[in-house]
């Protein structure tokens, strides 16, 4: 029946999703997943900028051992706000809400997500949570650390814990709705012939992520709610003086927040699979293993939260189980790494900007993943936890992994999203600066951590200064590398060369429609007769067909 609709649209005059109405109303009331994705792109980027400015402030403060740029109260708020903004308002939504939103329907041959109004609602919820949080930050901010550990957060902090907590609580619903939407969409909206094992791996990755989002996010919402009740009414959930347990908070918090790491990294892994395949023009090696390793990571990700608490007084035997399961998660991650490498074998590899980001991702994820083993091993964890080793590790995984995947994906799909080509030269420069800057910033922190520099310190002993100087120097390179895309991508919107429908000659469905796509995504309901990543001749003919249709429209 959808076929019929698609046929009718095929004869209509061609407007793409960007030119389909220019009023504010046409954007704010849109149900088009692509427009919603663009609005996410703008606001999530704004939060990234805010979080980045906090990061720069932190690195400047740590240039010297004394707390001279910020006094310790200010420093505590700055690192807390850096964490809150980056984790909840950037890293978690960035790929699913922007690229997932934009691409999921296109990749499976659907006209939109299954629940378009819910999709718009999730954006509004994100804005509401974001505005509330920003308001709280401007009023004076919060100093509990992004983890909100009790009893400091419930009894001792005099900052805007409630407002920021409420912002995160509200924002969680955005995540839940997006996850729900993705799951329903993948189950019900696939085009004819788009079987589960023909899905692009980015779709698999988002599907696995969506499972984590709808199963995990309610727990953090409940945790924040309990925190609020405890703070206001002081009923004794977490307060040992009235029979509560401060460690209970940590269990609840990490039950969500460890899987949240996979909300950040899994979609990024999906992007990397797309990029490596596209730029070596090869089918992804071991497609099924990559798809199932995403699901395995999502499932096991729920069973390892206790590895954040090896020194908290948790029982030794619980610690053993959590340590064991943590080691098990290393296996599907290693599988992905091997498969990506094997995909390159006998490929036809080109070094376009997105591929450079993908190479950078592999390097950073390798280091981040391997250092995860250090922390999963209990004996070492005791020495390393709460030091800069852990700061470095989670930045490699969460930031290196997520941001490089995101930037790679953004560059790769930019022509599809905007209809413009960006400066390839500056794209490559940015990819290299980000990679070098990132390593220069965070690698010294592994050494600092083993030397024993604790995290969340505004002032530190002098012997740690040299490595901190390296780190701050690296941060400035990283900052430059991250700022460049803002300039050349925005520049491309006006001055960029017009993009073809399929600039990469890729067989995926998202490339078989115009750039930018029309509001309904496809002129004709696509029928899928090929497996994902079939760069063979048969599908190239189809691409030619798509290009001819495109030319006919002009």
């Amino acid at each position, binding site marked *: 029946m959808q076929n019929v609709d698609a046929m009718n649209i095929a004869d209509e005059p061609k407007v793409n999703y960007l030119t389909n109405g220019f009023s504010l109303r046409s954007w704010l009331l849109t149900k088009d997943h692509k427009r919603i994705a663009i609005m996410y792109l703008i606001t999530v980027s704004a939060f990234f900028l805010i979080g980045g400015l906090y990061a720069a402030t932190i690195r400047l403060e740590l240039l010297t051992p004394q707390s001279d740029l910020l006094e310790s109260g200010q420093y505590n708020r700055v690192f807390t706000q850096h964490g809150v903004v980056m984790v909840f308002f950037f890293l978690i939504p960035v790929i699913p809400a922007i690229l997932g939103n934009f691409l999921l329907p296109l990749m499976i041959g659907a006209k939109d997500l299954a629940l378009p109004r819910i999709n718009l609602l999730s954006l509004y919820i994100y804005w509401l949570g974001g505005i509330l949080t920003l308001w709280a930050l401007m009023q004076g901010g919060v100093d509990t650390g992004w983890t909100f550990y009790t009893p400091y957060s419930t009894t001792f902090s005099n900052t805007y814990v409630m407002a920021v907590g409420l912002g995160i609580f509200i924002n969680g619903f955005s995540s839940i709705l997006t996850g729900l939407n993705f799951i329903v969409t993948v189950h019900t909206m696939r085009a004819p012939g788009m079987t589960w094992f023909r899905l692009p791996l980015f779709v698999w990755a988002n599907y696995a992520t969506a499972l984590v989002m709808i199963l995990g996010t309610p727990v953090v919402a409940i945790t924040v709610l309990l925190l609020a009740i405890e703070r206001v009414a002081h009923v004794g959930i977490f307060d040992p003086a009235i029979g509560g347990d401060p460690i209970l908070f940590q269990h609840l918090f990490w039950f969500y927040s460890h899987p949240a790491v996979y909300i950040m990294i899994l979609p990024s892994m999906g992007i990397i699979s797309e990029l490596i395949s596209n730029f070596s023009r090869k089918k992804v090696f071991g497609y099924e293993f990559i798809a199932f390793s995403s699901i395995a990571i999502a499932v096991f990700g729920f069973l390892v939260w206790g590895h954040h608490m090896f020194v908290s007084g948790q029982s030794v035997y619980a610690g053993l189980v959590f340590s064991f399961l943590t080691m098990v998660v290393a296996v599907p991650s290693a599988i992905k790494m091997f*498969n990506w490498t094997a995909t390159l074998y006998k490929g036809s590899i080109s070094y376009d900007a997105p591929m450079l980001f993908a*190479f950078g991702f592999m390097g950073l994820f390798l280091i981040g993943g391997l250092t995860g083993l250090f922390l999963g091993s209990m*004996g070492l964890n005791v020495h390393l936890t709460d030091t800069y080793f852990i700061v470095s590790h989670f930045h490699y995984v969460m930031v290196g992994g997520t941001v490089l995947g995101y930037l790679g994906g953004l560059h790769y799909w930019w022509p599809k999203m905007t209809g413009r080509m960006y400066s390839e030269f500056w794209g490559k420069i940015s990819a290299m600066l980000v990679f070098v800057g990132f390593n220069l910033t965070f690698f010294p922190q592994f050494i600092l951590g083993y030397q024993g520099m604790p995290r969340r310190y505004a002032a530190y002993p002098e012997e740690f200064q040299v490595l901190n100087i390296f780190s701050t120097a690296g941060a400035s390179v990283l900052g430059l590398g991250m700022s460049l895309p803002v300039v050349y991508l925005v520049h491309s919107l006006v001055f960029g060369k017009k993009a073809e429908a399929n600039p990469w000659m890729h067989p995926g469905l998202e490339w078989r429609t115009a750039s930018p796509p029309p509001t309904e995504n496809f002129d004709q309901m696509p029928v899928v007769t090929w497996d994902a990543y079939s760069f063979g001749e048969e599908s190239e003919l189809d691409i030619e067909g798509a290009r001819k249709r495109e030319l006919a429209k002009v």
Partner: protein
Amino acid sequence: MQSNTWIPLFPDQASSFAWQIDYLYFYLILISVAFAIPIVAAILFFAVKYRETDKFATPDEIHGSTTLEIAWSIIPFVISMTIFLGGALIYYNQFRVPEDTMEIYVVGKQWMWKFQHGTGQREINELHVPKGRKIKLTMTTEDVLHDVFIPAFRTKADVVPGRYTTLWFEPTMTGKFHLFCAEYCGLNHSGMGGWVYVMEPDDFDNWLAGGGTGQTPVEIGKDLFNNRLGCASCHAGGANQRGAKLEGIWGTNVKLVNGQSVKVDEEYVRNSILNPSGQVVEGFQPIMPTFKGQVSEEQLVALVAYIKSLSNAQPNTAPMSNPAPATPASNTNTTAKTAAANSNK
């Protein structure tokens, strides 16, 4: 703290298990390098060897290989299990406190560390310990979470309000080592630290003798028990005894009115003082009032030390690990009644 000569990138190995953690660390670095170099080499090699010669060429498809997939699942799994086992063994040693330890009480407070030795020596943000003796810290906090972290000893443990956590180590090198608070605790978190001084045992004994003007925890506890809190009126035995007998119960299991039994340890004694109706011993009425709000964490520590002393569980608080002479603490190994009588003199 960077005084070791061979690699300046590591803190001193100043405790008996520091070398184990360093060896595990080297093992992991070795594995990481052994894993990363082939992968990175393969990526670079493929990227150069198979670089694009023809725009949008379509190389032969390779679908995958189940044999390879199984091999590169099993090998990482086996390696990760060796890492797990190594880490688990070390952790088990670190957290299983040996019998013959010298006990020091630690109370964390925003933003300082308060230490009290078995002889009554008190220190703030400085901890003196003898080399070559096993030391056990029994720790709690008056306010928020803190964490005792001594990088040179390769150990740390959270300090949690409302419970006692323990940490033990055996210093193997004299010197001055960093002590940090590693769990974020508010405004002056980065200022909440100090130094651990490891001394030769003789020097330590002199130091301990020199400044030992205060009462021992056992003496403070005894004073609280007999005089200031009036515990003795119910717990001191004799005809009027309305509370459970405390002599000889440390470390044993007592039966509760609800049929369960519980081991008498720091946690249980603390709970019984703060929340007496929670775990009433079989044969007694739940008539004891709560002392919550009336006793500070430091006083609780002293009461626990005293009650422990009633059961001759003394070696832990002895200031010297040499065959223990009669220390002030072990002198109190009498019944509470005579103890009470003594203190009333």
